[in-house]
């Protein structure tokens, strides 16, 4: 090791030491020295970088075809004619696209009201259980469906509330008409929300449970001594304690407003029809890959990506203005 010039600054002290380094600027060692010191770290990062660049960032550049009259065989990415924003203009005259957009937004809004509070309530319920064993058992059960694939979840729902499902069997055996919830396009939004709750709400409670555990018991005790009952403690201590997490997750959800998932809708599209089930991602798939209008589909996908990015930045800004921590307060 070279003794004269100090090789690369002590690593992990890093973030804590960063401000100190800023106040008394030290000349950075030459990059060659740093390379001699840090090459094992670079070698370690190499496989990850190959995969991240090779399957994430390089294809991201392929979004230029959204501005091209893309010809997959004769032109390719480099030889196709540039047409500017033509595809984007066409998107907004396309009734299918507009339907996908409205469906997506209404599903997001619906789930914000009917899905979002469920993990919070589940966490409150689990947190309130005095018996450690019961709580642990409940946690094990509610986390489980998160690890099932959408294919499985939909297969399970088919067997429960589908046309030949258990509920129909039961109704028919008792002289009622069977019902088929899986192909009814009017109630589709209810169906997808229940599926989302069944699959993900339990796991979604984890983050709220952690926030609940972080609230100091002394606060509860002081409030109780001052005569606050359990509902007032819930309102004045528990909910304010959860607020940062709730705001954080709301921001993330709003930033994700155009993203309601793909598989769930793709898998059920043939059963309920595209009228109700067409969402952004299925539109991208059908217009792009199935029909073969790659440039058009890519334009829809890029639109979604850009709007999503703007939304998440805006939501974060609003959170900061409201005095919350937001998502990227650190950097």
């Amino acid at each position, binding site marked *: 090791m070279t003794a004269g010039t100090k090789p*690369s*600054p002590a*690593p992990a*002290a*890093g*973030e804590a030491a960063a401000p100190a380094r800023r106040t008394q600027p030290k000349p950075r060692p030459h990059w060659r020295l740093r*390379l001699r*010191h*840090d090459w*094992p*770290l*670079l070698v*370690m*990062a190499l*496989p*990850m970088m190959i*995969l*991240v660049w090779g*399957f994430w960032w*390089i*294809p*991201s550049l*392929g*979004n230029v*075809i959204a501005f091209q009259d893309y010809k*997959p065989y004769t032109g390719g990415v480099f030889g196709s004619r540039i047409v500017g924003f033509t595809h984007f203009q066409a998107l907004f005259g396309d009734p299918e696209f507009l339907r996908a957009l409205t469906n997506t937004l209404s599903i997001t809004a619906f789930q914000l009201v009917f899905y979002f509070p469920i993990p919070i309530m589940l966490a409150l*319920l689990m947190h309130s*259980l*005095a018996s450690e064993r019961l709580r*642990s058992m*409940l946690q*094990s*059960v509610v*986390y489980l469906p998160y690890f*099932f694939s959408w*294919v*499985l979840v*939909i*297969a*399970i729902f088919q*067997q429960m509330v589908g046309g*030949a499902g*258990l509920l129909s*069997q039961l109704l028919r*055996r008792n002289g009622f008409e069977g019902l088929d919830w899986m192909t009814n396009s009017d109630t589709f939004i209810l169906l997808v929300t229940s599926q989302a709750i*069944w699959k993900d709400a339990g796991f979604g409670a*984890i983050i709220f449970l952690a926030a609940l555990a972080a609230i100091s*018991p002394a606060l509860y005790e002081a409030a109780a*001594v001052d005569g606050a009952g359990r509902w007032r403690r819930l309102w004045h201590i528990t909910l304010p304690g959860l607020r940062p997490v709730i705001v954080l997750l709301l921001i993330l959800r709003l930033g994700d407003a155009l993203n309601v998932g793909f*598989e769930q809708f793709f898998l059920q599209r043939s059963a309920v029809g595209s009228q109700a089930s067409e969402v952004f*991602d299925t539109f*991208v798939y059908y217009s792009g*890959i199935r029909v073969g209008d*790659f440039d058009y*589909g890519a334009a829809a*996908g*890029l639109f979604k990506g850009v709007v*999503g*990015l703007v939304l*998440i930045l805006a939501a974060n800004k609003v959170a900061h203005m409201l005095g919350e921590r937001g998502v990227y307060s650190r950097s």
Partner: protein
Amino acid sequence: MNRAAWEEKPTAAGRAGKALSIAVIMLLILFPLYTIALTSLSSAETVQRVGGLVVWPSDGVSFDAYEQMFRNPVVLDALVVSLGVTAFGTLLSVLVSILGAYSLSRPGSLGHKTILFSVLLMFVIFPGLIPVYLWVSALGLRDNYLAIILPMAVSAFNVVVLRAFFMNIPQELFDSARIDGAGEFRILWRIVAPLSKAPIAVVTLFYAVAYWNNWFNAFLYLDDTSKWPLALVLRTYVVESAPLPQASGLESAPPTLAVKMAIVVVAIVPALIIYPFVQKHFKKGVIIGAVKG
């Protein structure tokens, strides 16, 4: 019971309400799994007589459905493919992520910011379906298992989980190892990895589940249906109720209900086997610390 002294006694109504909601939640999740498992273990006659899913275990256990399922080469091949892809993919992903996360946990090293940025930006910028599809096809990976592994091999979330944990390991351990002459690889292998069993277990589960459950990449890139993984067969057989093309002659009719349910059970079982070993870490909040970054 560990109720604090200042806390009031729970009311009867409150206790009843809690007990009821717990029972309903458990039932909503466990009952479907129970009746599906029971149906898969029933004989064809029982299913015929009941006219659908079997709810009461009255006729004893029959493994007909499983026998039938494994006689069908489609399901058996798909199972082998799924196991292989999951095992290989998970191994690759976990190794790459541990190495990458360790590298990212040493701030101030050469290129650290660039590398960290190209991982963190994956949370907000997505390449989109079409460009990835065209790119993977252009790489000539169609009908190659790499096409269903490589695009999902690195999850930024998992890397960040590991990195957060690595960064919390006390600096003194690194310093003393360095004084003893250990290089980065040895430090990772001898000190960091053994101390990080919990997050590594969680990340392994996440990757394994992602590979096991993924059918869409196979749907996009594998034209040869004999290469399909179980999740895709499940979709075709069970969700769409369609026979698979290459099964013609042997099982060209859509499978019976009991066989369908047997396929569902086979698709669930691996998750059920690994889950108990890993779930205790969720409760300890391995992920949360990382998410808060």
